[in-house]
């Protein structure tokens, strides 16, 4: 039913017309097709190195199709709708993979997982949260990112701050102090919405705790419930106090990062990929910039960290299953590959055999922070189903624009989210 009626006739007609023009290459037996969203020069180059290493070890050939990440989502959807997904593709662990699994478009990798002994390779916290869907393994983690408060060291030193706050009072005092010095305490670039989600995530996790947050993400708790209202209220007070840069909705995440790097703002809540961006612009980790974990608000709430996990999955219409499984297994288990790849993209390996000492000091402290947390949560747009995430992401922008109306904004979002959950 997926292909509309009478395709047959058109095919006969057109193929006979085009027969000898047809350039379509036949797939090689040892070839594995892969789509990924590491499409920029740098990402493509590093992916290419992964392929070289893999091909040298196994003899399979990787045939890649890089697509910029916004268009990547469309590309995967269109190809999924036509049962012509690539053998392997990168995707975001959490609700997005769940969505594709529920649609029956992915192959489980339980056998490969067991044969390759991945239980002893992938960190348990990551394995439990990111690879299991409906009781089966579907994904291997390429790397994980951690979201924390990245700050300009010089700005903080000029403000006379050497010890970064660990609790909320200290954090508020820091913001007030920076504001008094004429520096915007916090940069946020919510033009494309997602950078604002980390505030929503951390505030709920650090006030109401992971269970409430999970309930909001799966629709069993409301956006206008007391817990969410209270968490967003804290955020909105900060906006009203002038702790955020003006016009957050006009900036992209790189604009916000630039403001911190240039000293116009002191810090920004962002993922570890910011280190890749800053290092590329000539900043030195630990010297020009550093990070501290999101401060504690409710001491009773378990310590949570937030971040995305990029994964590799195998499609249900896989042509070269053996090769696809070999690639997934290689990507995550090969220690050298993990070290090179994660260092290149400024992320952390989920492979327990990777010695943290291969990373710079800053990333090593990221690992300590993540290991010390009792809960690793996916950021908002990877934690809740895509139709709902669209509602929430727009809500964040509206909150930044009209902080005083947050009650009404949350109620409206609840209405929209509820109907999105019922789809």
């Amino acid at each position, binding site marked *: *039913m*997926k292909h*509309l009626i009478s395709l047959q006739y*058109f095919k006969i007609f057109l193929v006979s017309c085009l027969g000898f023009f047809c350039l379509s290459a036949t797939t090689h037996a040892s070839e594995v097709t892969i789509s990924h969203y590491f499409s920029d020069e740098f990402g493509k180059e590093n992916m290419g190195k992964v392929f070289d290493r893999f091909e040298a070890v196994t003899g399979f050939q990787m045939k890649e199709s890089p697509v910029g990440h916004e268009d990547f*989502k*469309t590309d995967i*959807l269109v190809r*999924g*709708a036509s*049962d012509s997904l690539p053998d392997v593709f990168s995707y975001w662990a959490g609700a997005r993979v769940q*969505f*594709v699994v*529920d*649609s*029956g*478009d992915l192959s489980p990798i339980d056998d490969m997982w067991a044969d390759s002994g991945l239980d002893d390779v992938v960190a348990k916290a990551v394995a439990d949260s990111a690879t299991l869907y409906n009781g089966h393994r579907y994904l291997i983690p390429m790397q994980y990112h951690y979201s924390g408060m990245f700050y300009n060291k010089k700005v903080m030193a000029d403000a006379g701050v050497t010890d970064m706050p660990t609790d909320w009072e200290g954090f508020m005092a820091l913001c007030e102090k920076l504001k008094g010095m004429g520096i915007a305490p916090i940069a946020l670039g919510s*033009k*494309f*919405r997602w950078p604002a989600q980390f505030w929503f995530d951390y505030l709920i996790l650090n006030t109401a705790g992971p269970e409430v947050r999970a309930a909001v993400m799966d629709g069993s708790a409301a956006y206008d419930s007391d817990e969410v209202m209270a968490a967003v209220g804290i955020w909105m007070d900060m906006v009203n106090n002038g702790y955020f840069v*003006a*016009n*957050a*909705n*006009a900036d992209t995440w790189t604009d916000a990062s630039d403001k911190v790097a240039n000293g116009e703002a002191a810090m920004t809540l962002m993922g570890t990929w910011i280190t890749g961006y800053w290092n590329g612009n000539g900043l030195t980790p630990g010297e020009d910039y550093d990070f501290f974990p999101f401060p504690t608000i409710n001491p009773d709430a378990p310590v949570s960290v937030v971040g995305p996990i990029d994964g590799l999955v195998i499609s249900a219409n896989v042509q070269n299953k053996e090769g696809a499984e070999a690639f997934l297994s290689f990507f995550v288990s090969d220690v050298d590959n993990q070290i090179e790849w994660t260092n290149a993209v400024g992320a952390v390996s989920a492979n327990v055999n990777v010695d943290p000492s291969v990373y710079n000091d800053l990333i090593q402290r990221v690992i300590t922070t993540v290991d010390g947390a009792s809960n690793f949560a996916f950021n908002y747009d990877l934690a809740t189903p*895509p*139709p709902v995430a*669209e509602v929430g992401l*727009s*809500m964040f*922008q*509206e909150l930044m*624009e009209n902080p005083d109306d947050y009650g009404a904004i949350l109620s409206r979002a609840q209405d929209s989210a509820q109907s*999105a959950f019922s*789809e």
Partner: protein
Amino acid sequence: MEKSNWVWRVVFLAAPVAVFSLLVLWPLCSSFFYSFTNWNGFNPNYKFVGFDNYAKIITDRLFLNAIINTFIWMVSAILLPTLLGFGFALLIDSNVPGGKIFKSIFYLPICLSAVVVGQIWTWIYQPDWGLLNTLINFFLNESMNFAWLAKPDTSLGSVIVAWSWQQTGLSMVIYLAGLTSIPEELLEVCEIEGTSTWQKIRMVLVPLLTPATVVVIALSVINSLKGFDILYIMTGGGPFHSSDTLAMHMYNESFKKYLMGYGSAISVVLFLLALVIIRIYFRELKRIDEIYG
């Protein structure tokens, strides 16, 4: 005679109609089909839901918002480039030195890709160091940091300005071509009679340029729908849907929320609206034909 005409009709129309039906009409029909399902794009096991998707449109607050924005977008994306293009054409046609250079400068934007045009205009509207605020602050001696693209009241208008900048050259070129075709003698008569410039434009040039206007409007209408790219890059329909058009709304529902069925219903409505617009266009065209034909 009539018989041989039929042969030629079939021979001539076979290829265009076949290609168009196969690659445009038929896919549109399948969109019509999906609009009665709850398909999410990925899942082959979709269900028929009757008119549920159409019922949802009526209650969808964002749909109404998108209709209004589409109307604003269409009207201004047609009027602005047309009027500006007409004005530029008049100025250049007055035998000003360097006319050819001016013409190329005004046409240049069309050659640039939407991706880069979107990025550059984002930098023009940038609140702190953007060109627009810098100029305003320089001339008015203020210190404004208004975020044009990030405020719901100005986001759509700001994109329309960027869009008009890109499209004006096209209207200008067509009007310029039209102007060269206006007979000398007519203008000389105007001069002898002592007609004012404004009267000359209104009574002589505008009517005589009707064929050019028909083309300009047609191109603007088609182009205004292609404006999706620049809107997508500059605001993505934001902030919070303030610059959503129907095309953007359809894209969001289908490809971001994975509600293919609902997205298809939106495109069916969009298609019906388009038919109405075309009818109006042709009725006007016919009226113009009767007057000037």
